[in-house]
């Protein structure tokens, strides 16, 4: 047993919380699901190992030489992992500053806030690394199995990258905190973290489109032009890649830099942790801002009042809007493709259709969750003299209106280049968005809007169905735009998916709230 309020005592407390939080997240907070969770974890591990096997076993069997192409691909992969880890770490660090949870208790006790901060940041580094390890692990294992155990050193590189990303996340968040103040930092840090997470993927994809005219990131990383322009094999930039391939000297250096920087950052910033948390807790009490004064009520039908309310709430919550619209970031590469191919390659424009259709389905699902499950005053709406169907219809109209606003510019631009493709895309957007919204209605469950990022926990079936439906409608749209009769088959599959989802929707208990 460790002594109370020591580093190890706090660490045990943190790991205990982290483990319970994770189990609760995975089991949707329902007891007795742990054996199912273990089973799902085993199946997931087997599936991702199979995927890794099919993707890289042929390469690994032949043996992978540490040539410049390999170094470029591995370094690209490291940057991708790093951007994802940095994004996750920034979000976690921000949450550590702002989430009240147990901080009131801990900071009002005589325990050292510095130790709490050190342990929390170390926990963030570890959880960040673990998440990426779950995704990268099967690939590392496959490489180690077929090309030698030297590849196991890649786990050390992941740890170093996790530590470095967390250190960077702490430094950036604290800098934002000091520069912009606690009120703005929360929003900006969340947006920065999301942009960082998507930024590298989108950047490489954009580069691939510009240089090769395709979506393939791997093709871009292996392109002769890029490899020729990259620094020589002996350059310092390749050390992480060399370390991953089993160069123990490079591995020691990577670990030394990653862990060293993390320790340094924790040592420098931990003395002010308590002050930051206190400042963050005061945000809600800061001066109330008066808003542009409207002098008169605007006449509105019941449905329009509901739609207007949904749009106002969405517009006024920049964090939620940024989370929702983040999916739209992934539309940037196709938009780039549209711009590049405008007027000369209609075939290339086909690739836009599934991307827009799929993004619309996902966006509609997210917005529908906010409008229906994330309703802040369900009693008020349910007690109003309006049929529940009319309430849901108004909310869906609000969702579809928002989706239309987002995708309309892209569809219009597409219409100028290829009207037929644009018409098919518009139809696909409508059907995909309506499907995503309907699924969220079938699986609605009262929740806080702030739980938006964890909405998949309330129903994994809804999450999977929403994704599957979006993918199938995307496939249908692209096949229809290409004039293929196979579109009928994918449309049928999408309809079957919706029918199956409807059939297994949770039944409203007699006496449930009438919304």
């Amino acid at each position: 047993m460790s002594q109370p309020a020591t580093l190890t005592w706090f660490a045990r407390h943190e790991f205990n919380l982290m483990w319970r939080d994770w189990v609760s997240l995975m089991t949707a907070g329902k007891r007795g699901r742990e054996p199912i969770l273990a089973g799902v974890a085993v199946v997931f591990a087997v599936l991702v190992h199979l995927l890794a096997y099919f993707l890289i076993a042929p390469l690994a069997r032949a043996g992978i030489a540490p040539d410049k192409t390999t170094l470029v691909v591995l370094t690209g992969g490291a940057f991708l992992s790093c951007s994802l880890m940095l994004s996750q770490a920034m979000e976690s660090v921000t949450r550590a500053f702002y989430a009240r949870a147990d901080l009131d208790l801990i900071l009002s006790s005589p325990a050292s806030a510095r130790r709490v901060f050190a342990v929390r940041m170390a926990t963030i580094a570890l959880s960040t690394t673990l998440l990426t390890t779950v995704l990268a692990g099967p690939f590392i294992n496959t490489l180690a199995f077929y090309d030698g155990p030297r590849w196991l050193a890649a786990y050390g590189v992941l740890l170093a990258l996790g530590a470095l990303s967390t250190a960077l996340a702490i430094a950036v968040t604290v800098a934002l905190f000091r520069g912009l103040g606690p009120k703005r930092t929360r929003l900006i840090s969340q947006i920065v973290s999301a942009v960082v997470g998507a930024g590298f993927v989108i950047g490489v994809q954009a580069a691939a489109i510009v240089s090769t005219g395709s979506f393939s990131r791997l093709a871009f990383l292996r392109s002769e032009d890029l490899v020729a322009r990259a620094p020589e094999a002996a350059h310092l930039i390749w050390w992480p890649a060399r370390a991953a391939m089993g160069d123990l000297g490079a591995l020691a250096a990577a670990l030394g830099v990653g862990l060293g920087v993390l320790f340094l950052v924790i040592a420098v910033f931990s003395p002010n942790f308590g002050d930051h948390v206190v400042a963050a807790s005061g945000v809600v009490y800061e001066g109330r801002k008066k808003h542009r004064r409207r002098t008169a009520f605007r006449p509105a039908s019941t449905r329009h009042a509901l739609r207007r309310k949904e749009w106002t709430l969405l517009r006024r919550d920049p964090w939620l809007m940024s989370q929702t619209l983040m999916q739209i970031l992934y539309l940037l590469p196709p938009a780039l493709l549209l711009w590049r191919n405008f007027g000369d390659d209609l075939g290339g424009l086909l690739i836009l259709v599934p991307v827009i259709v799929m993004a619309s389905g996902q966006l509609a699902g997210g917005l529908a969750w906010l409008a229906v499950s994330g309703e802040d005053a369900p009693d008020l709406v349910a007690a109003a003299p309006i049929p529940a169907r009319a309430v849901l219809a108004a909310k869906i109209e609000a969702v579809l209106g928002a989706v239309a606003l987002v995708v309309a510019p892209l569809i219009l631009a597409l219409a100028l280049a290829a009207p037929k493709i644009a018409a098919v895309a518009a139809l696909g957007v409508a059907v995909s968005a309506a499907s995503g919204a309907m699924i969220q209605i079938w699986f609605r469950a009262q929740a806080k809007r702030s739980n938006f990022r964890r909405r998949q926990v309330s129903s994994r079936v809804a999450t999977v169905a929403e994704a599957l439906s979006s993918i199938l409608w995307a496939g249908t749209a692209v096949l229809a735009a290409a004039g293929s009769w196979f579109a009928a088959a994918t449309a049928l599959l999408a309809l079957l998916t919706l029918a199956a989802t409807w059939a297994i929707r949770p039944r409203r208990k007699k006496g449930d709230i009438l919304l």
Partner: protein
Amino acid sequence: MNRSTIALELRGLVKHFDRPAVDGLDLSVRAGQFYALLGPNGAGKTTTLRIVAGLLRPDAGAVSVLGIDALAEPIAAKRLIAWVSDEPMIYDKLTPFEYLEFVAGLWSMDAGTAEARARELIEWLGLAPHAHERCQSFSKGMRQKVALAGALVHEPRLLILDEPLTGLDAGAARQVKDVLTARVRGGATVIMTTHILEVAERMAERIGIIDKGRLIAEGTLDELRRQAGRAGSSLEDVFLDLVAKQSNAA
């Protein structure tokens, strides 16, 4: 009692969750009355009121609101009712002015009439300096006042409040009580649950006590004292005595 003067009538109301929450409840409240519904925790007060407000469906029984069968014609009944829960559900990102505009839209009110009423309520409840601030930084008391304004803006004839004074400071509680008293004077019916028995003692014309989903006593304070056999006692003593007798009898 003339049926047209009855604001709320419950007959054989039953609602089961894991256990019976409301168990054959019969209750009548006259129009224009201030009625306090009391009971220990878990007695079925909130469940009963949520059924009346149209937020829950009963397993059995009948609910009549000002002569309208609320189970057969829920929309017609809802037009006459306002519901205020103990945890004010308002929108953090709307201002009180916008919140009232939204509520007026839900009740399909004429914009001009609704706006005049909203301004009056905002003034009356002391919300005027904050009418154009978002509710996100409001205290519990201010949030409760906004919710109450929302409940009153459409001039309900039956106002149902579940623990409306919980967490309010003395000033805010006084304002809420004044508003409710004024509404009753204006002809509306108020049904309120509360654990603050002094409030029920001072404000309610009639008091109903429910336990384990059944009405165990009902009447004016004097009538309840007689039922408990405790002349001159406070409502608290009467309430505790009646609930204890019921528990012993069970």
